[in-house]
Every structure is written in C-alpha cells, then in structure tokens.
C-alpha cells in the first residue's frame, strides 16, 4: 500500500547536534512517504547518552529509536536491548552497507550482527598553518609525536603559542584527545581487550604518553589549556593564535567559517601524527539504533534506513555545516566536495579526513559499560599531572587502582 505506517508515531531519543537538527527538519519527507510521524526528543550529548542508557535498560518501549555511540553498542546490543538490523538491511538493497566507512560499521557490529546505522564519523585531524611552518623553516606537517614536539620548539615565539589542546578532565575531552598518545606510545587501557581487562594505565608507555601530553600542554599549549575544551581550541585556531592543532575533523566547518575565522584559506589538513606503535586518530561513530522494546520496529527500521540513506545524507551534507558523513559515496559527491572540499594547496580536507578514518580503530574507546567511569577517573589524573599536583607515575598508579576497582566491582575482573 501507499503509506504503510499511517498512524504510527515514532519517538526518537537523541542529542541536539547538527545531524539531528537537520534530520528533524527533513522528517516530514519521511512522513509524506510512509505516513509515520516522527517526534524527536533531543538533549545535550551527556544527558542524551544518559537518557538512552536509562531508557534501554528499563526496557521501556517509550522510544523507538535511540542515539548510540559506538562504545555503547556492545553492551546494549549484547544485552539484547537493541534490535539487530541485518534482516531489514538485507531486505532493502538501497542500504548498500559497503558504501559505509568500514570502521563505522564494524564499531556497531557484535558477533556478526549489526545493531546501529552510523551517521556520524568522529575523528580528529591535524590542522596546520603552512605560512608559519614555512617561516620557521619546516617543510610539511609532523608525522610523529617527536616531530610534533620538535616543530613546536621551532614554531613557538614569545607572542605565539605552538598549539592548543583539550585539557578539561572528561571522557569526551582530555581522554578523547590523550588516548591517541596512549595508544601511539604502545600503551593501552587494559592488558588484552576483550580477554583480559586488567587495567594497564600504570604501564611505562602510559606514563610516557602522559608525560608527553603534559609537556606539550604546559610548554606549548595556550594559556588555560588545562581546562580547555574543544571550544577553546577551535577559537584559538580561528583567531590565528596558534600554529597547529589536532582537533575534531567535523569542526572544520567552524574553524574555517569566514564570518568567524581569521585563518580561512590559510590552513593545511593532515592525518594526525603517530607514535612508535603507529597512528591512532581518535575515533568513534554516532548512530541510531532501534530499541528492542519498541512497538513499531518495522517503521523504526524504515526510518533509520531512510535517515542514513545516500539521498538523505547527501542532502544534509551538501546543505549544512555537517561534514562527518559515514558514506563513501557522499565523500565523493561533487556537491559535498563543493561545499566542504577545502583545499588551500596544502592537503585537501576531504582527503585528510578520509585518510584519517582509514586508520580508525573501532575500539579506540573500549566498548564496555565501565569505560566512562574509568575514563572520567583517568581524565582527572591527567589533570593532576598537568597541573603538577602529582607525578605521572603516582597519578596514573592511583587512577589504575581505581579503574581496577571499578572493573572488579563490575565483575570484569576476578
């Protein structure tokens, strides 16, 4: 029939981010096509995640679709709280899973079942100022951490700091940033995910990563870095106060916004530097999933497929500041490239973005429920190190034992 879901109202529990607000504007199209009304309930990111957690675990059918970050999919999907989408996807050839960036799909798949369709590929890239690099006699962006440190020594002048970075203690601020150092220096959160979850945050590699981070931040970071969040970094970059920064790729739209920026047209884009163990750009995906308790699963699946379809994503990507798309076809879409394909002669934005995503580790954040409390704890330790309250060894040892306690309490450890 024409409108199969006439009379159905879908409830979406999400966050107030550009993708969702854009999607909300276009929901009428879906209603027109299928008859199902879509009502969005959008919160701030932290609150949204929290609501989702609570809603799912109470097995309430109140929401049909929920927002999930990749790191949460394992526990929700594993707990049977999310509806596997494989059948619905199989039934609809238009979905074309192969078109999605592989990491974004992998992050949402457990035991071969796909639980969410990603719309947002979050990673960080290196924004750099070719003019300043040239003046300092450096040819090209740093490829490794040590190069980055060396370059900073050269780039920094009494008037200008070298870089800006997130220092605010939180899973989504300093940990999101620092984890690339942890992994790059060869460390990890736990001994051997998923087989042995003994935390290894007091390892020499972790200490080295923390020391590196602290030195970079205190010696070469802007004043106030210790409490900076992405916002401060973006503003410092926009204002031309720094020579380079590793920051969220999706934020390029803001950094380059001619109305706000003094540097639009003066930036180069590159894959972030790596360490002895390789390059580990921060990565997560954001996605929507169907609540297993939903009473309108079919309609919800249909909406999810529609929302992440090539057409919808192309439309949003080309007509808004949203760039963190998850489909290769959109990355190659001329309209998208026209809108976002910044290239000022020192590396194309879209290329750098795609190359960075290619290095993405779907388990950049450990996909366990206790990751958030554990990471929040480590974030606080990092701040202690930066402010010199404690040595890296002491702070991390203390954090490690707290994390161990958190894991043990959750029976992740014997």
């Amino acid at each position: 029939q024409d409108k199969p879901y006439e009379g159905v109202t879908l409830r979406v529990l999400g966050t107030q981010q550009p993708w969702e607000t854009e999607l909300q504007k276009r929901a009428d199209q879906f209603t027109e096509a299928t008859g199902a009304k879509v009502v969005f309930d959008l919160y701030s990111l932290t609150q949204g995640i929290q609501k989702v957690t609570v809603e799912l675990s109470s097995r309430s059918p109140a929401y049909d679709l929920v927002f999930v970050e990749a790191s949460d999919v394992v526990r929700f999907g594993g707990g049977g709280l999310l509806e596997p989408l494989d059948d619905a996807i199989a039934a609809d050839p238009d979905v074309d899973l192969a078109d999605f960036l592989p990491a974004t799909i992998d992050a949402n798949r457990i035991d071969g079942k796909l639980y969410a369709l990603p719309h947002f590929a979050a990673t960080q890239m290196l924004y750099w100022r070719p003019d300043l690099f040239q003046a300092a006699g450096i040819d090209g962006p740093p490829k490794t951490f040590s190069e980055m440190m060396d370059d900073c020594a050269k780039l920094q002048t009494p008037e200008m700091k070298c870089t800006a970075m997130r220092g605010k203690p939180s899973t989504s601020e300093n940990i999101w940033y620092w984890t690339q150092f942890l992994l790059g220096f060869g460390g990890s959160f736990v001994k051997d995910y998923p087989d042995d979850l003994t935390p290894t945050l007091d390892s020499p590699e972790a200490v080295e990563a923390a020391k590196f981070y602290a030195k970079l931040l205190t010696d070469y970071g802007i004043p106030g870095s210790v409490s900076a969040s992405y916002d401060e970094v973006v503003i410092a970059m926009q204002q031309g106060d720094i020579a380079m920064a590793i920051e969220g790729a999706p934020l390029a739209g803001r950094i380059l916004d001619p109305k706000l920026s003094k540097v639009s047209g003066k930036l180069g884009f590159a894959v972030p530097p790596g360490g002895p163990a390789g390059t580990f750009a921060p990565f997560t995906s954001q996605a929507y999933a169907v609540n297993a308790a939903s009473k309108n699963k079919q309609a919800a699946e249909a909406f999810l497929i529609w929302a992440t379809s090539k057409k919808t994503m192309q439309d949003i990507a080309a007509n808004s500041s949203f760039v963190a798309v998850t489909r290769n076809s959109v990355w190659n879409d001329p309209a998208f490239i026209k809108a976002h394909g910044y290239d000022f002669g020192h590396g194309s934005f879209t290329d750098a973005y795609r190359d960075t995503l290619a290095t993405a580790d779907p388990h950049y954040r450990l996909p366990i429920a206790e990751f958030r409390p554990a990471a929040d704890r480590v974030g606080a330790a990092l701040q202690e190190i930066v402010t010199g309250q404690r040595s890296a060894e002491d702070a991390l040892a203390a954090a490690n034992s707290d994390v161990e306690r958190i894991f043990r309490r959750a029976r992740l450890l014997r």
Partner: protein
Amino acid sequence: MILSRREKFVCYAVTYLFALFLLAPIVWMLSTSFKGQLAIFQKPPSLFTEFTFQNYAAVLSDPQFLHAFWNSVLISSGTVVVSVALAVPAAYGLSHLTGGRRAGFLSWVLLVRAAPGMIYVLPYYLAYSQIGLIDTRIGLILINSVFTIPLAIWIVIPFFDAIPHEIEEAAIIDGATRFQTMTRIAIPLAAPGIASTAILIFIFAWNEFLFALTLTRFEARTAAVSILSYMAYEGTEWGKVAAAGALILLPVLCFSILIRKYLVQTTAGGVKG
C-alpha cells in the same frame, strides 16, 4: 534605636550591596531573555543592547515547552491536592496529641523530609519501571508527596495549635461532633495557613527537578526540566533558555508575593528555636 551616621551608612551599604548581589544575576537573565543571539555574546557585554520578544515568541510557540508547562501546572496542583488532603487531618489529629507521641511522629516526619532526594529516586525508578508509572503525572505527584506531606504537616500544625482549645470545646458544647469540629471550626480557622501551605507545596512541586529529571521522558516532563532541552551540546540558545527561565519563574513569583507574610515562617518548617 537612634543610629549614628556611621551606623546608618554601614546598614545602607550592607543592604544595598547585598540587594545588588541578589538582583544582578536575575536582572541579567531577564535582559538576556530580550536579546538576540548575537547581542548575547557581544563583548564587552551591556545590559540593554536590543529589545526583542523573539525569544519569548519562540518559547511560547514551542509545543514541547507548552506541554511541559502544562504538565507542571497539573503535577503541582495534583501534589497540592494529595498532600493537603492527607496532611490536614493528620496535622489536626497531631495537634491534639501531646508529649512523646506527637514529638515522635513529628521527628519521624522531619527525618523523612530531611533524607536526600536521591535516596528515594532509585527505588522509585525501579518500582515505577515495573508498574508503568515512569513518565506519568501520577508518578510524580506520588513521589513529590514524600516531601510535601511532611512539609504540609509541619506547616499546618502550628495553625491548628494556635486555635484555642476552648473554641473547639465551645463547639462540642454546641453539639458538634469531632468531625464537625474539624470541618466547621478548625479548618476554616486554619484556612489562611492551609492556603499558604497549598501555595508553598505548589511552589515546591513546581520547582522540583531531580524526580522530574529521572522519572519522566516527554509525556510528563515538567517545565523546570524542559529548560535543559535548550541547553544543547553546541551553541546553547541562551536567549530561549533565559526566556523559558523567566516564564517558569513567573508563577512562583506571583504566588510567593501572595503569601509573603507566611512564607518565611512556613518555609522554616518548624524553625522556632
């Protein structure tokens, strides 16, 4: 007392400086609610840059906010009805008890009231998920009552206590039953106190945040919680937030001016020394 110049100056300075401290943030919110998004982040800031009703218009045309506002009205009123209906007879009865029993009940009520809200949220959350009271107005009214019934008992008791027992005895001699004495003598006499208690409970329920935050989704979401939806991850719409805040503030403001005479003594809830 006859104050010296210097003492007067000190008094004026203390009161007016504090009034400034008190008012400045509120005035700032009001001024923000009349500013456009650009003016809000203007540096350096100024109190009145532009004057627009667009924030109010936006908030008042947002069905989600209006729904939440209406929920607040219903939930607060419901809490008032339930609490008053239960607290008034109990207070009346208690005011006729003496010594240990009365003090015992009152202490228990006070302890219950003194417990942190968080201790109730968890079990209520678990129970409500089982019996389907999550995101219902009834559910909120019920958990609000945990605090408002004790509050009401504490506030109403002194009003009953203040009724000379001779008046009730006169009614008994006039042939009134105990129930009639309560309904026809005691309650009318305590009416101002009961009314202000009702308003106070309304304000309490209106202001309640934790329960509404954790036990609602969209159907029963209250106005206080709805503000959060304007505070998003990126680019909070401060103008709307401020306008919503001002609108939520309005009813409690009117009510508290109405009962200002009682507010201090009653909010004290037994603060007598």
